[in-house]
């Protein structure tokens, strides 16, 4: 199958739709010329590069934002250890990505894992674009943008294992996960040679790669880790500082603009559509969750609002550049309500998903992926058209999207179980009862979050 007609989240930015700047600069003639001759890579666009650089910075900010979002929800004695779970990965995964996993994800590939062509940062140009798909931005910038996704994805898992995991074990596990789970999944879905990518599976900004993968892995991780003592003893577990969580949620919303609209990899109509649908989905997600709380518990909470906007953002992530604004509202609303209900599962099924990663990112990510297949609109993004064709219509697309969800979920779940067991064997994963009661901040890090 000719890669040039493979539907992608990337091509629209570069070929099917001609960047404005090129338009303004070179005029329709050459523009259409590009449209017809994708062989010749399009020129690097400074404007598109600026947009991607800004988006990269925005996604970079999301990991500290996640640290705040999670940090506010745990008990005060674990606030720093929880925040460290996010910050530390900005250290480890950044290095791992540059040296190895970028190549495993985006290097020339058989479809399952990338080659080592870019290992140690080799052959990543700061001037020319990524060689395997047509883009209007330098490869080095594309690699940086993708790096930020690679950082936050394992960090999302940390919410599930909060308040009871050894720091060393956490670092080892997340490093293994970044290499053996994230890189392959990113390759399948986003590498132009990826097998799911070739099936025309649609994932605009990471509903499957980021949210579903982390959400399912979170389930596996907290099953291996077991419940916190406090839960067994039915002690109340109160969030230490919800204002911190609200701040985190606000910064996540801000950063998510880069996450989704930046995934157009150019400043064009796709980017604008993604921005708009992302924003209204977050809005609808917040309202959906608060409504759900109001009906179930008689009151809407601030924590619920913050959780709902994140749920909406999770839901829209795979769909952002493929759907109309009204579909964005619908997706956000569904995600908000669904996740509000889904977080109840852990009580029924008795697993200790401390900060509801499974309920929000697992369920929200899966729902978003399926809704993308249902609502993706060719008038918004011609890639949808190509994807529908190559899958023989809507039914086929939905089916393949579901297959994508199931494969990624199954792989992430099993792989995480194994990696957690390996970590357990090597350095251990669970803190002692004493550490847990005294709090991880003082016992693992020798610090108190607050000395007020």
């Amino acid at each position, binding site marked *: 199958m000719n890669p040039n007609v493979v539907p992608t989240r990337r091509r629209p930015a570069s070929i099917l739709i001609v960047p404005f700047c090129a338009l303004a600069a070179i005029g329709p003639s050459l523009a259409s010329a590009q449209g017809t001759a994708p062989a010749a890579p399009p020129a690097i666009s400074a404007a598109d590069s600026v947009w991607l650089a800004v988006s990269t910075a925005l996604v970079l900010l999301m990991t500290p934002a996640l640290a705040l979002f999670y940090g506010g*929800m745990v008990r005060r004695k674990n606030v720093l250890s929880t925040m460290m779970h996010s910050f530390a990965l900005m250290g480890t995964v950044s290095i791992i990505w540059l040296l190895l996993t970028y190549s495993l994800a985006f290097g020339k590939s058989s479809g399952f894992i990338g080659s080592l062509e870019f290992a140690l940062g080799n052959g990543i140009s700061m001037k020319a674009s990524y060689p395997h798909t047509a883009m209007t931005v330098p490869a080095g910038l594309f690699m940086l943008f993708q790096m930020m996704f690679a950082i936050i994805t394992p960090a999302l898992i940390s919410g599930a294992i909060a308040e009871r995991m050894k720091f060393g074990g956490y670092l080892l596990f997340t490093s293994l996960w970044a290499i053996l789970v994230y890189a392959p999944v990113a390759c399948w879905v986003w590498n132009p040679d990826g097998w799911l990518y070739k099936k025309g599976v649609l994932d605009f900004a990471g509903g499957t790669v980021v949210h579903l993968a982390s959400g399912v892995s979170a389930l596996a991780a907290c099953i291996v880790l077991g419940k916190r003592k406090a839960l067994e003893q039915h002690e*109340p*577990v*109160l*969030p230490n500082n919800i204002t911190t969580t609200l701040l985190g949620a606000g910064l996540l919303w801000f950063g998510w603009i880069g996450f989704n609209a930046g995934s157009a990899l150019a400043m064009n109509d796709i980017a604008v559509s993604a921005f708009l649908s992302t924003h209204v989905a977050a809005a609808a997600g917040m309202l959906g969750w608060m409504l759900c*709380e109001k009906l*179930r*518990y008689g*009151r809407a*909470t601030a*924590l*619920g609002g913050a*959780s709902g906007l994140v749920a909406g953002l999770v839901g829209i992530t795979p769909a952002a550049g493929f759907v109309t604004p009204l579909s964005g509202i619908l997706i956000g609303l569904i995600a908000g309500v669904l996740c*509000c209900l889904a*977080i*109840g599962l852990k009580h029924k099924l008795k697993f200790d998903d401390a900060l*509801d990663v499974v309920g929000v990112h697992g369920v929200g990510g899966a729902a978003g992926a399926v809704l993308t297949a249902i609502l993706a609109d060719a008038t918004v993004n011609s890639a949808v058209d190509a994807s529908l064709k190559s899958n023989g219509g809507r039914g086929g697309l939905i089916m393949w999207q579901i297959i994508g969800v199931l494969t990624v979920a199954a792989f992430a779940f099993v792989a995480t179980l194994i990696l957690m067991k390996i970590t357990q064997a090597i350095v251990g994963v669970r803190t002692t009862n004493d550490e847990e009661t005294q709090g991880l901040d003082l016992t693992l890090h020798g610090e108190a979050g607050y000395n007020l």
Partner: protein
Amino acid sequence: MTKIEAYIRTHLLEAVHHALDELHVHGMTVIDVRGMGSSKGVHHLYRGSEYTLTLTPRLKLEIVVNDDQVEEVVEAIRKASYTGEVGDGKILTVSLGQVVRIRTGEKGEGAL
């Protein structure tokens, strides 16, 4: 010398303070506490997990007075911290051995 201790509602501090002023009692120590008793406690809701915290915020007042003042002070506190709703709290008296004022070393009544 006697120490009067009172567990009161947090928002009634100003009122008690005012009542004490009228008796020219100017010394008091206030402690933030959490208390339970006949009242039901407060509901918290975090991501669908509902907790009823039986311990609710209260203030503990400690006021050292001369024995002859105990009656009026206790009465003043009671009036000022009264709402009639469950949860108003208690007032206790503890008799003290000695009382020393750090700044002067004065003992007993002179220490106040």
